């Protein structure tokens, strides 16, 4: 089942590759295509998040938090009542993310399997390719060169005056992940709350994790990370959900973002 799912991704990726003849360009176009297809999920997730944020500022919500502070069961019942009354599904912000997760994993695996750098991977790839759509014998070997990179290997930029290679892609992936997470973090009404704290921790650790992956894994995957980050920022910007001021450390978290403004 999962193999068949990844197989669809692999065939689409290779079909794009067949059209453009460069695996780097194919990864970029494939990532854009997937992000476009999952755009409605992103929008739905944003709406859900917005509703939850609005709810936390609602008088009735604040009241019941104070009133039933010591009675968790009653608090929960009252919260549910309020959800129903306002027509809010508490899962509406995380469900689209959960649906997107297998898509993201499938995308990772499609990129890696299409690069097929070992006999097992190549055999697997041969089994995945739809013979009515693609001919594996004409696709292999994939042109895995993109700019200065071999997409099947970790990337390093070698300069004549340096004795070591610079991991440009790893640096850019780390930076773009950091920027993306900062820009997408919504303003928190109470910065000390658990959710805000978790977001801050994620913002701190995820860029390093992604940077480490980009440093050690095939650069084809790093290219996907980078393109995905850029598209993610663009999507949020188009939807007016980017907190540009979050990038400036001296300012307070954006209180005048389009999202926040509407709530004043």
């Amino acid at each position, binding site marked *: 089942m999962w193999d068949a799912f990844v197989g669809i991704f692999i065939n689409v990726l290779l079909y794009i590759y067949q059209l453009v003849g460069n695996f780097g360009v194919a990864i970029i176009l494939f990532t854009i295509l997937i992000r476009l297809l999952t755009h409605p999920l992103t929008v739905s997730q944003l709406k859900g998040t917005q509703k939850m944020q609005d709810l936390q500022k609602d008088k009735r919500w604040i009241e019941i938090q104070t009133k039933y502070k010591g009675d968790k069961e009653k608090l929960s019942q009252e919260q549910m009542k309020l959800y129903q009354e306002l027509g809010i599904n508490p899962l509406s912000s995380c469900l689209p993310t959960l649906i997107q997760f297998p898509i993201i994993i499938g995308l990772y695996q499609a990129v890696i399997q299409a690069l097929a750098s*070992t*006999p097992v991977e190549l055999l697997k790839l041969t089994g995945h390719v739809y013979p009515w759509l693609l001919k594996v014998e004409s696709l292999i*070997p994939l042109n895995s060169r993109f700019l200065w990179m071999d997409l099947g290997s970790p990337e390093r930029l070698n300069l004549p005056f340096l004795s070591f290679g610079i991991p440009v892609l790893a640096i850019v992936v780390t930076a773009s992940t950091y920027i993306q997470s900062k820009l997408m973090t919504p303003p928190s009404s109470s910065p000390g709350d658990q959710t805000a704290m978790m977001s801050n921790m994620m913002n701190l650790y995820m860029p390093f994790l992604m940077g480490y992956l980009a440093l050690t894994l095939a650069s084809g995957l790093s290219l996907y990370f980078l393109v995905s980050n850029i598209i993610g920022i663009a999507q949020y910007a188009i939807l007016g959900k980017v907190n540009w001021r979050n990038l400036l450390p001296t300012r307070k978290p954006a209180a005048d973002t389009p999202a926040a403004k509407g709530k004043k």
Partner: protein
Amino acid sequence: MLSMKSKRILSITFVLMAASLLLSACSGGLAASSWPGVTVAGDVAYVAYGSEIGAVNLSTGNLTWRYPEKVDARTTYYAAPQLDGTQLLVGDYANKLHSLDANTGTAQWAFEGAAGRYIAPVKILPDAILAANADHHLYVLDRQGQLRWKFETQQGVWAQPVTDENFIYLAGMDRQLYALPMAGGEPRWTKDLGGSVVYGLALDADGVLYVSTMAKEVIALRAENGQELWRFAAQGVIWARPVVKDGKVFVGDLTGKFYGIDAKNGQAVWSVDTGAPVIAAAGQTPENLVVVNEKGDVIFLTLDGSIVWTRTVNGKLYSSPAVGEKHIVVAALEGENLLVAFDFQGNQTWQFQFPKK
């Protein structure tokens, strides 16, 4: 209410869980893997698989030695080990070519000049070692592992090179066949084969090269000048190395067909449907062929395509069977046993798995 410390621990745990989920999502496709490589020399079967290399007594199936003493999961071996007198040569997936004492399994020297995986077994010549690597290079070493020269191709080379007195013939994933002077330098000739070569390169005693490609073809060429003699169109993609014996070329494809082809004109004399993809070259006994396929069948064939016996082992058979004086050894991927040995009558004589340390 949770304390600040608890919140911090909770947050870190969440991040770590997300990280591990992400890593596990990637790892499914990232693990560098292949199937066992096995060679028989004298009374010993040498097997390379995963993180270990082992020497197994061919008569008893008992382990004589294993290498390394302490397993390092970062180093994996899949290319079939090759015996050079008393040294055993095997390349790993990290980029190292190891020389071991064939009697004891102790390390002698290592060549670390490559940058990629060793998928092809090395080719040993009287005064040189040819080590093709997935880093798009053929490395030519002396018998002590010192680099003499190297040749760059456009893609990785997974097929073991073949040689005659003066030339090295090299074919790889770049669809090219190169005739390289033994002393190095520019190729004498290069031929575009129209399809990638996975394992499929053979040379017969009459100076004819046989190359099987992913473009579903076997091509015969004159080694002297690269002149094409014939092309045989198979039903499926071919990975296996062709085997030349008694004026015929034998090869299997991924549809499961195994062909006997006339070496003179490239016409199929017979074909057998084995029922599952054939990845590996056939093993040769003095009078017969041993064909293995993906569903674990070991098929003992006459040279005219008649099946003498078939046995099935648990696991996938992607590696070429190694044939000794009295034994056929097959190496299984994802099976109960790593090695299974048969005599020429099809009786199973022993099975082997690395004992747990």
